[in-house]
């Protein structure tokens, strides 16, 4: 650490975590290699360490599925907004302040009693960052990428979700720069709820299509 600080011309102190206890051989090697690379790129002036910190902070603490939950909750209470979201999701989502990287071209997919939408990226890990943040590990994993398109009901079962047999199961493979946000069904027992309260029922998985919105305790599931 001292060595690294002394070599850093930018006077920036790294907040490296030394708490790892050698879980697997990849870890120490990667820690060293990434540090060497960062040090080199700083010396060459290719990156600004403060910018790196800001990038990490942004996606670790600021951008996340709470953004998407606001979009969904608004669409549940405001029919005009819902219509706009389904017609021009990029603009409707931007109106709430969520724009940019990995969400430049948004499409919203409406789940109904008859249609359930589920999103995957079989080729890499495309995911709508401005509304959902960075994807969870399972979304980027080979099991999900391989099976979502051929056996989505099997995948849903692993998430504890079973849909009636008559429901049309549509899988959307994000092969281009279009990013998909699933608009889950509003649970019953929520009449008169505020947007804020409704947003608390919108799970991250319900916006990918691997889950449903939460049902308030004591309420009946819509059949």
């Amino acid at each position, binding site marked *: 650490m001292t060595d690294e600080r002394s070599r850093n011309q930018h006077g920036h102190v790294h907040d*490296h*975590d030394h708490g*790892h206890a050698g879980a697997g051989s990849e*870890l120490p090697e*990667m*820690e060293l*290699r*990434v*540090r*060497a*690379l*960062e040090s*080199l*790129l700083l*010396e*060459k*002036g*290719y*990156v*600004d360490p403060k*910018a*790196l*910190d*800001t*990038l*990490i902070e*942004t*996606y*670790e603490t600021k951008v996340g599925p709470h953004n998407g939950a606001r979009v969904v909750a608004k669409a549940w209470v405001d029919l005009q907004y819902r219509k706009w979201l389904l017609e021009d999701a990029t603009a409707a989502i931007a109106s709430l302040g969520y724009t*940019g*990287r990995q969400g*430049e*071209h948004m499409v919203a997919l409406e789940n109904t009693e008859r249609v359930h939408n589920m999103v995957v990226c*079989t*080729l*890499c890990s495309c995911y709508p960052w401005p509304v959902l*943040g960075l994807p*969870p590990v*399972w979304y980027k*994993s080979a*099991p*999900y*990428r*391989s099976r*979502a*398109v*051929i*056996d*989505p009901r099997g*995948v849903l079962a692993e998430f504890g979700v079973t849909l009636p047999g008559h429901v*049309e*199961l*549509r*899988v*959307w*493979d994000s*092969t*281009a*720069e*279009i990013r998909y946000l699933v608009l889950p069904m509003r649970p019953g027992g929520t009449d008169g709820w505020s947007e804020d309260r409704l947003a608390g029922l919108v799970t991250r998985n319900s916006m990918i299509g691997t889950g449903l919105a939460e049902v308030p305790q004591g309420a009946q599931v819509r059949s």
Partner: protein
Amino acid sequence: MNGVHDMGGMHGFGPVVAESDEPRFHQQWERRAFALTLGMGALGQWNLDQSRSARESLPAAQYLASSYYRIWFDGLIRLMLERRLVTPEELADGRMRSAPLLLARALAADAVPAALARGGSTQRPQAGKARFAVGDRVRALNINPPTHTRLPRYCRGKPGTIVRLHGAHVFPDSNALGAGENPQWLYSVRFEAGDVWGPGTTASTVFVDCWEPYLEAR
């Protein structure tokens, strides 16, 4: 390319396992590798498609055995070595031996929020008219380019229907080769799952975003 990254429909990877806590990053190096990838990307020395192509071009066994951010890291290294932004000797110990190439200024911290909010639209003006309209019956071409493509193997040669026109977008197959953005009309194409997988699939329909050069009329 017919790489192992093109995973749709493969068997043998086991069940989907979700973590209970789902941290965004699992190790400190993952944070830094993520940020370095975005920070270096901001210099404009490669485009999105070249970045994806670099990851896909990692040796197949290495790709499958690597964690996600390890793939990002190895892809980043490959892109920088190809452009001589760094040398293998410099990477070994992190000490600069060759003067930096003169590039755009590094992304500054105070420019990060605006850069992220702006993103990078891939939509472009397109002179000609779109060849297909919503409802048209099409077929994905049976092609096997050895270079980058975004047409998954599983839908090649399969019949589908146009459900949406997304405008013209940068064509990855050209852009990844540094051969220009070559914008092409982009469509959402609906494939009946039975046409793609035969009996036994639990999907009803699979939608794939396809650029016009991936499609023919049927």
